[in-house]
């Protein structure tokens, strides 16, 4: 587990009543929980992380009640830990998501996802004349504005903004 970009908020968190109930229902022994995903982004998160292509046990819940967000999605992946750069990609579609790392039924890390400095492969370049839209080339962007989510294409140098962002 790479530690950069992950803010450690608490370790060995004492579980409050509602969390305890939820974790009891579907607790995992070891692995990663991604909580507070907007329901409409759950399947994008699955795709971005390539969860449809791994053999691990995965539990997916969506449209669950959330005190903070009304409705939320949650994904629990057993025996899988992500590089922070990889998990942070989901911040593009689920900026509110929380990453929880579980070892031996205990929360060892809990942090909000953060938008990374570079984005590879998952976003399409907005420029129809960009070489990445015409040859078999994985896209690559530099995040030039994290608050407003603006990505500059490493190849054509054009800027793709949040409102027009398309995922591959």
């Amino acid at each position, binding site marked *: 587990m790479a530690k950069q970009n992950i803010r450690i908020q608490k370790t060995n968190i004492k579980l409050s009543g509602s969390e305890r109930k939820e974790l009891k229902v579907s607790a995992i022994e070891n692995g990663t929980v991604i909580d507070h995903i907007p329901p409409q982004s759950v399947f994008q998160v699955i795709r971005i992380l390539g969860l449809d292509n791994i053999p691990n046990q995965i539990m997916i819940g969506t449209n669950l009640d959330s005190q903070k967000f009304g409705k939320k999605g949650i994904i629990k992946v057993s025996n899988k830990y992500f590089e922070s750069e990889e998990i942070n990609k989901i911040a593009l579609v689920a900026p509110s998501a929380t990453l929880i790392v579980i070892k031996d039924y205990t929360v060892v890390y809990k942090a909000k996802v953060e938008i990374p400095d570079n984005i590879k492969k998952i976003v399409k*370049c907005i*420029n129809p*004349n*960009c*070489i*990445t839209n*015409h*040859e*078999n*080339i994985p896209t690559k962007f530099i995040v030039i504005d994290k608050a407003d989510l603006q990505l500059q*294409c*490493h*190849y*054509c*140098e*054009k*800027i793709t903004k949040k409102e027009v962002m398309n995922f591959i």
Partner: protein
Amino acid sequence: MKNKSLVSIHDITKDDYEKILNLAEKFEANPRQKILDNFVVATLFFEPSTRTRLSFESAASQLGARVIGFSDASTSSVKKGESLKDTILTVSNYSDVIIMRHPREGSARYASEVSPVPVINAGDGANQHPTQCLLDLYSIRKTQKSLENLHIAFIGDLKYGRTVHSLVIALTHYNTTFHLVSPVELKLPSSVKRFIKEKNLEYHQYTELEEVIPKVDILYMTRIQQERFADSLDYERVKNAYILKNKMLENAKKNLRVLHPLPRVNEITEDVDSNPKAYYFNQAKNGVFVRQAILATILGVNISN
């Protein structure tokens, strides 16, 4: 810069510009030296640009290099559907450096990443054309004796003009005051203005050409293309508003020079050509010396003064 590709003006520093311009001066004094006679230079023009290709080929030939390549993708294997990567990998077997022009933006960056030999970008779509930018800097420095503290006017299509964007960004290193003259539809984009603002430099925007002429050291003219306008009436309205005529230069400063990346259509009338302030044909000639300097630098060849 030895063995490095030149893809974008963002790749090189102010220090690099100056090294290239200084070396270009030496080539201007002595353009025919057989320092590249052990080298093969490939010019891959996936879209035709006769002017740029001839300038590069002249630069390379005058230094004794062999030039191979194609001038139009329709006559090459690209037409048969070969990927850009395969073309670059193949040609890199035959040459020491690849000069490439391609209609797609980002193609040169990608080529530089897959190529084992350095790539010089001779224009990737509407994105970058760094050698044009360097020859513009050379022409400005040569005519004004220095690049520092100048007043420079850009006229015409400032929105889509790739040469304008790169040159504005490069000039922000030299405390330039910018005078931006364009129709409202074709103003300099905020992504480029950002560079001016970051350096706290002054810029002024105009829609009329005449009032700016007495204020500036350089008039950088560009062509306004009809296809930039959705409505042809809008084009008709502005197409004649940015034409430079000789009599308009009467109140210009003595040191003013008129630049244009060429080809021109009608934006500079022919009566300007004989005015000593007209510098655009010399500017094109300077392109050869600057490209010689870039080739020699990238190939790591020194010249004996």
